[in-house]
């Protein structure tokens, strides 16, 4: 792998007699979304404050592109920090300034852009974060969720190369929470910045993260992909993941991936080898176009509705489901065959055509600038399996069987 963009080598941080970070070693790579997970008070915010330079380690070194920060001269340090931006956990908005002034502040103070250009950039970010109605309001006059979006707009307005997000979704409802994560992922793809998140939102952050760092008992105990974290055997997984990860995913009310597997093994592995079951794999394709035309929240509303309908239709016949990826769902039907599953699927699609489209359009209407009509498709694959075969193999088989079952059109 390349030289890490940021590397911690044996970093220790103490506050008085309390050690918060104890010989922490980690690597963060350029162009990726890296999420730091851990329990509340475990030192995640302290850790990222070392990256931006708000805190200095008592021991150890922090390297930026291989060069220790403490050996950099002022110009090098300025250059290193020039492309960084930080979104505070409590927003840190200036309460004597309006939303517009808060977002414009870094451009006004650190660039020589003219007023018109600053206005253009600020308004673009304000529109993207759906704050058009609040530009003249003060932070105390808007909700906590909107304040969070103002902080997000301010963090992104300078087009930074590295953005540190400290709990960017706290205090948001499930749709907005996922919309913010989706927005971070989209911006990261579009602008190619390196995103470093601190988050509790397990498993939602897995969908957008390239790498996960697990902070446990003052140390980084895991670094790797979300898939590798699934295989990771450590007390961290039992104590932290289980306590942070709800039994059901907040947005869709479906099982988390791990809980889904637990249920699968508990229910089907005890069955006789001859027993068959059906797996359905759903994919919402074209959600990128929905985001572009109607916004992140409309897209998340569609995902939420799909999850709810899958649970309602298949849960009624003993099925259990999980969200596998951003736009992907899986359902296991232990007591149904392919024909029954097909019939239920038809009803589900009909319901989605009504309820789902209505929900997406309603959410899209709340946007200041809505963007006309957009098409997306639902692809579904059905596969039959037996307990002897692993769930992953059956899901893979269902994926190969996927075909378009509906092409839907949304208007704002």
């Amino acid at each position, binding site marked *: 792998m390349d030289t890490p963009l940021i590397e911690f080598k044996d970093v220790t941080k103490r506050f008085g007699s309390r050690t918060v970070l104890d010989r922490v070693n980690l690597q963060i790579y350029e162009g990726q979304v890296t999420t730091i997970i851990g329990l509340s008070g475990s030192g995640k915010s302290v850790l990222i404050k070392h990256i*931006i*330079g*708000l805190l200095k380690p008592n021991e150890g070194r922090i390297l930026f592109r291989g060069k220790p920060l403490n050996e950099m001269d002022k110009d090098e340090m*300025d250059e290193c*920090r*020039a492309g*960084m*931006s*930080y979104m*505070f956990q*409590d927003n*840190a*908005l*200036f*309460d*004597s300034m309006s939303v517009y002034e808060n977002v414009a*502040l*870094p451009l*006004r*103070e*650190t660039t020589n852009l003219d007023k018109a250009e600053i206005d253009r950039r600020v308004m673009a970010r304000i529109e993207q974060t759906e704050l058009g109605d609040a530009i003249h309001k003060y932070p105390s006059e808007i909700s906590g969720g909107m304040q969070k979006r103002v902080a997000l707009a301010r963090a992104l307005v*300078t087009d930074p190369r590295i953005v540190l997000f400290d709990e960017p979704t706290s205090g948001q409802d499930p749709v907005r929470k996922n919309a913010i994560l989706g927005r971070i992922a989209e911006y990261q793809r579009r602008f190619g910045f390196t995103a470093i998140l601190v988050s509790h939102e397990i498993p939602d952050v897995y969908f957008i993260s390239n790498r996960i760092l697990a902070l446990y008992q003052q140390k980084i105990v895991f670094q790797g992909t979300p898939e590798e974290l699934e295989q990771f055997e450590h007390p961290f997984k039992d104590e932290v993941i289980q306590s942070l990860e709800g039994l059901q995913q907040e947005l869709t009310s479906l099982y988390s991936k791990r809980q889904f597997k637990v249920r699968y093994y508990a229910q089907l592995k005890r069955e006789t080898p001859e027993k068959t079951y059906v797996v359905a794999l759903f994919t919402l394709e074209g959600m990128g176009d929905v985001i572009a035309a109607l916004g992140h929240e409309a897209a998340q509303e569609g995902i939420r509705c799909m999850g709810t309908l899958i649970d309602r239709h298949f849960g009624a016949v003993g099925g259990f489901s999980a969200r596998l990826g951003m736009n992907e769902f899986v359902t296991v039907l232990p007591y149904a065959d392919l024909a029954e599953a097909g019939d239920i699927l038809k009803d589900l699609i009909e319901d989605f055509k009504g309820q789902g489209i209505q929900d997406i359009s309603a959410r899209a209407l709340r946007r200041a600038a809505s963007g006309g009509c957009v098409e997306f498709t639902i692809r579904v694959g059905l596969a039959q399996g037996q307990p002897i075969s692993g769930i992953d193999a059956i899901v893979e088989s269902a994926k190969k069987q996927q075909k378009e079952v509906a092409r839907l059109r949304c208007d704002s």
Partner: protein
Amino acid sequence: MTLNENSQNSAEQVRGGRLVSLLTWPFATMGRGFIGWVSHMGASTIFLCLACLKVFRPKQLPKIIEQVYYIGASSVLIIILVSFFTGMVLGLQSYHALVQFGAQGSLGTLVALSLVRELGPVLTAIMITARAGSAITAQIGIERISEQIDALDTMRIDSLGYLISPRIVASIISFPILTAVFDLIGILGGYVSGVLLLGANPGAYFYRVQDSLDFKDVTDGFIKAVVFAVIVALVCCYQGYFAHMREDGRGAKAVGLATTSAVVLSCVLVLIADYIVTSLLI
């Protein structure tokens, strides 16, 4: 040596240790206090020097104007009110004292010299401390505890240059102007009570005012005003900026304590500085 003797010895050692610590306690406390004081003096000197250096950054003028409005223009009304009644009381008391010696003709001299040399700069500084200084500490303190100052640092906006330098410059501009307003209105106040209400000669009053005041009196008053401006701005900004490092409180309590300290310390330092500057100028 028996176990009993051993425990007796250790008990005596503990008693001896307590006695030593009781005797050294006043020195230790004074020493800690002195080290703390030296540390604060050093920190505040560096703070002031850095803030002064950052005055000459670009984009400072609008912030300075904004602070001149806040510290200076917004304080005019209260300065007029206080100076007018100060002048009136001065006229009243001085008239009754002078009349016993048949020297009521010197009322203008007494009022003008008292105001321009001492009362004007000192009372102006104390009034601005109460009105604007406390607000500066509270505002900067809240910005500190709510991480707004950290946010400035992460945006590469120099927090000293952005928050402190404009306030110091604005104080240096505002204090002499407000002192001049105080002097002028105070003399008018003395005229109202001494001449209009008590019947002193109006011509003698203004003649004495004009005759007794040298240009040096006025410039000395302005020098004091500038010194007080630096003291008040430094103390109030410093207390707010480092509110989060107070050992006697955290959060909102720290801001409250910082504001109290700023006002008390500013007033005390203004009076001490008044004596020192007067003795140097006289």
